[in-house]
């Protein structure tokens, strides 16, 4: 077997690689994100080859061209190593530090009982250590869900799991191990292990199935259904979490339905929807675009296929909200002023930055209300070197916006509630908290509501999971579940009409 030298720039790390190895197989260990699971579609695994040659077939060339990249770029998932090569990893945040610990309070000696709440998101996993006597957050740990190595979208991961039992097992193992690692980091220096009374995990239905090691086949195609929606209890030792006491109980919360998981159940609890005399709504601005609408008497919920645009994925210069991500844009006389996370050089757009960029293009008449560039020769607009919005990005955003808007409209219709009757609309999810409401409405998103009706909530799933560390709250779950009705809106006869209408930024009528 022949071997080649692969050098990664700017780290200058050199690896010995067998002839013919797929570049993405090597880089996946370096947390390279492949939303399309390496099918050569999304272009997110782009790298620049600085030295040496890599064969590029016609299809490969076509994708590079479609992504407006020059010849020096290659997709890792289509590049086989057949030479000594030096590659440059992209400057925007494709390589993400997998575990960032963010201590909130200094290490405490206290003997207070504590618990751990985990939001098992499709993209991000967040774990928090909570002092149960004060409800104070002692420490927080956050990182990418390792399942993203099998695809950014859930269907890709399900397809991966269905290929073989060992694939399915590996997803379960990596998820449990990753949460275990977060717990280890939380406990390190922070608290006496014996004080941890329990761990609560919330997530969507697919995450529930992957964590529990359930067969996901029935989540993969119509007629969709889940194997079970029930909760699962484990002892820490069953999960191999030996940093906790053996007897420490770990609880995976139950799903609402096959399409809506305990993350939304937790959101409903965190927002107090089940106790409210007045109607309220919770909108998760994420890939599955879940919406819950309810009050004390009844709760309706649905999910919409919004796609990952709101999380900055499947966008040419999309990235997570880490250093260098454009999160807001100010209009100034000399042009757009980009505000970035940590004040770094702009490297890409996170979800809220995407909204601000498109709003900038619309309000400065670069694009019209249909989403097309007004100058018919234009296909993209550069905000900074290598930081641009392409026409495909605008289309991607229009699809996400239309799916959510149609979901909100149809759910209100299903419940027979006028938009003005809602006391509060909670926005949560990856960018829910950072979204600029006025700009969101300028793009026609949720324009039937008044700004004053909105309330942003950082992570309603995690807040609800924290609340469920208390027995009294957790014991209410079966009764709350009984009141929730799942509505499949995409089969509604009016869906296509509303969906198409909502793709525009303002009404055509």
């Amino acid at each position, binding site marked *: 077997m022949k071997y080649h030298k692969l050098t990664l720039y700017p780290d200058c790390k050199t690896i010995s690689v067998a002839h013919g190895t797929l570049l993405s197989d090597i880089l996946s260990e370096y947390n390279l994100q492949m939303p399309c*699971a390496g099918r*050569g579609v999304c272009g997110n695994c782009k790298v620049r080859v600085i030295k040496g040659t890599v064969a590029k077939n016609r299809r490969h060339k076509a994708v590079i061209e479609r992504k407006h990249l020059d010849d020096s770029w290659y997709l890792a998932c289509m590049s086989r190593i057949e030479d000594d090569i030096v590659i440059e990893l992209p400057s925007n945040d494709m390589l993400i530090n997998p575990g960032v610990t963010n201590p909130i309070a200094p290490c405490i000696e206290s003997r207070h009982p504590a618990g751990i709440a985990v939001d098992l998101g499709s993209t991000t996993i967040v774990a928090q250590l909570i002092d149960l006597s004060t409800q104070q957050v002692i420490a927080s740990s956050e990182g990418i869900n390792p399942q993203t190595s099998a695809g950014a979208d859930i269907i890709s991961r*399900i397809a991966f799991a*269905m290929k073989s039992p060992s694939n399915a097992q590996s997803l379960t193992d990596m998820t449990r191990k990753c949460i275990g690692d977060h717990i280890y980091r939380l406990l390190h220096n922070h608290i006496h292990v014996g004080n941890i009374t329990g761990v609560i995990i919330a997530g969507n239905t697919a995450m529930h199935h992957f964590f529990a090691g359930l067969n996901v086949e029935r989540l993969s*195609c*119509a007629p969709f259904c889940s194997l079970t929606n029930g909760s699962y209890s484990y002892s820490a030792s069953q999960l191999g979490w030996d940093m906790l006491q053996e007897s420490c109980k770990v609880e995976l919360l139950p799903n609402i339905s096959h399409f809506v998981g305990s993350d939304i159940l937790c959101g409903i609890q965190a927002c107090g929807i089940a106790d409210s005399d007045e109607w309220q709504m919770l909108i998760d601005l994420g890939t599955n675009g879940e919406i819950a609408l309810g009050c004390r008497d009844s709760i309706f919920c649905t999910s919409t296929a919004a796609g990952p645009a709101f999380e900055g994925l499947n966008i040419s210069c999309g990235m997570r909200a880490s250093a260098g991500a454009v999160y807001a844009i100010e209009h100034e006389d000399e042009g757009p002023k980009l505000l970035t996370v940590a004040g770094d050089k702009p490297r890409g757009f996170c979800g809220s930055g995407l909204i601000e960029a498109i709003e900038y293009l619309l309000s400065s008449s670069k694009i019209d209300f249909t989403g097309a560039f007004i100058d*018919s020769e234009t296909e993209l607009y550069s905000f900074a070197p290598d930081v641009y919005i392409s026409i495909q990005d605008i289309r991607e955003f*229009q699809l996400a916006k239309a799916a959510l808007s149609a979901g909100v409209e149809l759910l209100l219709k299903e419940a027979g509630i006028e938009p003005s009757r809602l006391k509060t609309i909670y926005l949560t999810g990856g960018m829910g908290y950072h979204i600029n409401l006025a700009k969101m409405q300028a793009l026609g998103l949720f324009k039937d509501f008044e700004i004053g009706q909105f309330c942003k909530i950082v992570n309603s799933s995690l807040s609800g999971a924290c609340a469920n560390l208390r027995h009294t709250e957790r014991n209410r779950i079966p009764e709350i579940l009984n009141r929730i009705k799942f509505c499949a809106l*995409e089969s509604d006869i009016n869906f296509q009409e509303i969906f198409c209408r909502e*793709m525009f930024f303002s009404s055509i009528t």
Partner: protein
Amino acid sequence: MDTILERIATAVENGKINKNIPPRIMPGEPGTDELTRQALENGISADDILTNGLILGMERIGVKFKVNKVFVPQVLMSAKAMAMGMRHLKAKFSESGGMKSPGTFIIGTVEGDLHDIGKNLVTMMVEGNGYKVIDLGVDVKADRFVDALRENPGAFVGMSALLTTTMPHMETVNRMLKEVDPNVKTFVGGAPVTADFAKQIKADYYTDGPQELVEILNSLTAC
């Protein structure tokens, strides 16, 4: 002054149905409703209006969609404008013994998959180019594709899938269709589908959008 056929094509391209609908498009100007009636009154044949007016407009919107100048809702609007024009032509066609169609296209989203917007877009574009379309809907089992082909010998068949997990059904459908008629031309499409996949399952054509599909159909029916 543009000819009336050119004005019909422009109305279809812009999705202008009549003077008032939609109000923000070509405000105050007539749409396919008024223009088609006027063309018939002027003695232009229904065939001529269809080919050199309505279909021409649909072709133009198809090309614009392909290069991302317009988006899904505009194609839907054009299809509606075309349908309005067709309403007036249908009466004429039934007098003269039916309209000529270059061929029949059977389409459906495969079993287990409920996505229909992409499929509907293809339906609109193919229909808008004069073909007879048999839309089997979503979650279509292999047998139904086969039955439709038996009932419509010589038809083209298109399969759509939007999920990685339902794509494999295309292989079964394709094989069963070829057993019924080895010469049937099959098309596959949908976000996760690629040209390589089409080749692998021995489908005849992969297209990444409705316009390309129409162009292939036109070249197949031209000879």
